[in-house]
């Protein structure tokens, strides 16, 4: 579970950017917070039009892509890199999530600074074991020279984790989950209201299910 913290104690006046995970669930009552607002229609539209960079520099894009690739790594199946999670995050930061841009920029600078200090090279040039070591330092809050007062290192790590995971599993129209990589991995066939639901035989596994990308799952 991602214990995403409240970063700003003041309530927003317009659309809220805070969600408590379980307040959004049937269960409720967890202590966990998520601070962010998810991409609104502008970001959705931009994601549909293009996978071009809107916010990140080329170097930032590569760094975020590399971090996301350690959060959901590539193995015999695609991970966050192949799913285009960095594109999802770029579109979010381009529009309704724009207030997190400076946090991202400062955090990315600090992460590369940490990589340089420890290993003499930027994050993206490190082997994966060293990348994980840096992310563990970030997660535990151990980042010298952290300049953002908006969020602590561990809070930023929780945010980029949530962004990556949601980019991996949200509808591909938001810019991530490219080629349904996330849904293929977990065996989710896609939303069903528009396709008329499921038959009783499908509900007990006696009939295959057609996925939104066209293949069938048992």
């Amino acid at each position, binding site marked *: 579970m991602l214990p995403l913290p409240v970063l700003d104690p003041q309530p927003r006046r317009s659309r809220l950017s805070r969600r408590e995970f379980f307040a959004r669930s049937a269960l409720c009552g967890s202590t966990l917070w998520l601070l962010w607002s998810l991409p609104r229609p502008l970001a959705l539209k931009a994601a549909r039009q293009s996978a071009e960079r809107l916010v990140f520099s080329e170097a930032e894009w590569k760094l975020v892509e590399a971090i996301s690739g*350690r959060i*959901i790594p590539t193995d015999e199946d695609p991970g966050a890199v192949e799913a285009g999670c960095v594109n999802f995050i770029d579109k979010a930061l381009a529009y309704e999530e724009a207030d997190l841009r400076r946090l991202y920029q400062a955090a990315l600078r600090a992460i590369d600074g940490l990589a340089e200090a420890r290993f003499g090279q930027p994050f993206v040039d490190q082997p994966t074991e060293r990348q994980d070591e840096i992310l563990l330092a970030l997660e535990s809050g151990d980042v010298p020279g952290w300049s953002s007062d908006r969020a602590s290192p561990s809070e930023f790590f929780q945010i980029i984790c949530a962004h990556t995971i949601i980019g991996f*599993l949200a509808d591909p129209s938001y810019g991530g989950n490219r080629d349904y990589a*996330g849904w293929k991995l977990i*065996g*989710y066939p896609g*939303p069903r209201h528009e396709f008329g639901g499921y038959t009783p035989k499908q*509900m007990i596994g006696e009939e295959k299910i057609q996925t939104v990308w066209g293949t069938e799952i048992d």
Partner: protein
Amino acid sequence: MARREDFDVCVIGTGAGGGVIADQLTAAGFRVVALQRGPHLRTGDFVDDDELKVIWRDELFSPDQLETWRPDESSPTETGQFNMTGHCVGGTMLHWSAWSWRFRPDEFRVLSEEGPVEGASLADWPIDYEEMEPYYERAEWDFGVSGDAGANPFGAPRRRGYPNPPHPDRSAGLQFKAGARKLGYHPFPTPIAANSQPHGGRPGCLYGGTCGGYGCPIGAKGTTFAVSLPKAQRTGLLDLRPNSLAFEIKIGRGGRARSVHYIDQSTREEQEVRARHVFVCGNAVGTPHLLLMSKSDSFPDGLANSSGLVGRNLMLHVFTAASFVFDKGSRVFTGLGSHAAIDDLHASDPSRGFIRGGVVGSDNFVVKQPILHALWRGSSYPGSDRDWGAGFKDYLRTFSRTASVLSVGEDLPMEANRVDPDPDVTDEWGLPVPRMTHRQHPNDVAMSSWHADRLLEIGDATGAVERWIALRVTDEEPRKGSSHLHGTCRMGDDPSRSVVDRWCRSHDIPNLWVADASVFPTSGGYNPTLTILANAYRVADYFVSEAKKGAL
């Protein structure tokens, strides 16, 4: 101030309580105005079941919700969205999971059954199951509950069966039932207020998988949005006003409620509507919040509050859940919130170290959707020690083989647990947001701990290859909110110990009524909505009969 009109009745809130009141009173010929703070969505708005849009962005149901929470009066508050409520026409019921239970007879007399408990404000309801029984039946038939009457040997007695047969099984439910039987339990189909066949002019369910947390795109799910409000509108006697945020009830001559002031959120203007009776049905947070905001020289402590109990005894239920992973598909992303349940753990047994109990249902909507499943990992999945990396990816891979069990336990009322207007945090209109002060009773923690052990046993009996506790109530992880809100305007016969009488009419103000779960003196070990519906029918019947006698 623009409109100022006179109605027989003003209903505030159109969910399970207010929707039924609006239906029943218009059917009896009364002119009703219904205020709902959010928009009036259309059934077509629910076709798009995109998880990001509906669950995470909350674009549909209550994007303007804001509230605060603290564990006790000496702690600072946190600000956010803690309760799962709905602000649009149809209220929270619009996205309910539709588990539909009758309370057991003992759940109406908890104080008599258990005796006083330290730190808790137990009470008997002023009504009993026998009085509620015909109204449960009416609610089940109007809202199309599908179930197998008599299949739950621990359930309340009934005179008539369900209107619809049970829903078909799902793999996860079959696994649950087989495991439960091995343990000597008595599994049965979860009664769900969604049609398993065409009923009441509404179609049967399509089992698309996005039910709880979502609106129903075909009206198969029983809601006041699909059932009560269209019927009320057809009478021509309902003036349904969406985007109308009630913020004060004004008292007129004779100490009677005279009018309701609200913000029309579409024009951003303040409005006043006059009515001879006011029904407050804004749920157990919204209702006391409105009553306590309605202060005046005559009522410096808020309306209907001579007992001092408005807002007190907030109850959130004790939720305990385990997650299971099978070696084959669970199909949990299909179908309804739950397809099977047991009630064997319900009866109170103090030898367990706690009193009261609750029902156990297979599955819940948190494991049915990809992002919810991913973010509900709870750091407790046995295969990973981190929320990211290779082990976490393996957890993601379990999605299609995952199932869950959830127990809904009765929590004990405590007067310190309360809702009041927050003096420090305001919403975009400058109104104080609702503030919850809530801490669990030791009985709640003991119940959750015991239930957690039983749920893990069920996991073992189903043959799950992995199982773990995903949610429990502990002192370290307090509940900050719920989808089940009750207790903040309790009903009772003694005006010094309750807010409304047995007819849910204010002891203090004779034309002010409350018809939601605020009036529950205790929370019961079941999802509350069918009881809200049944009680609203009961109150409406009384209102109509008294009005005919000229007694109102």
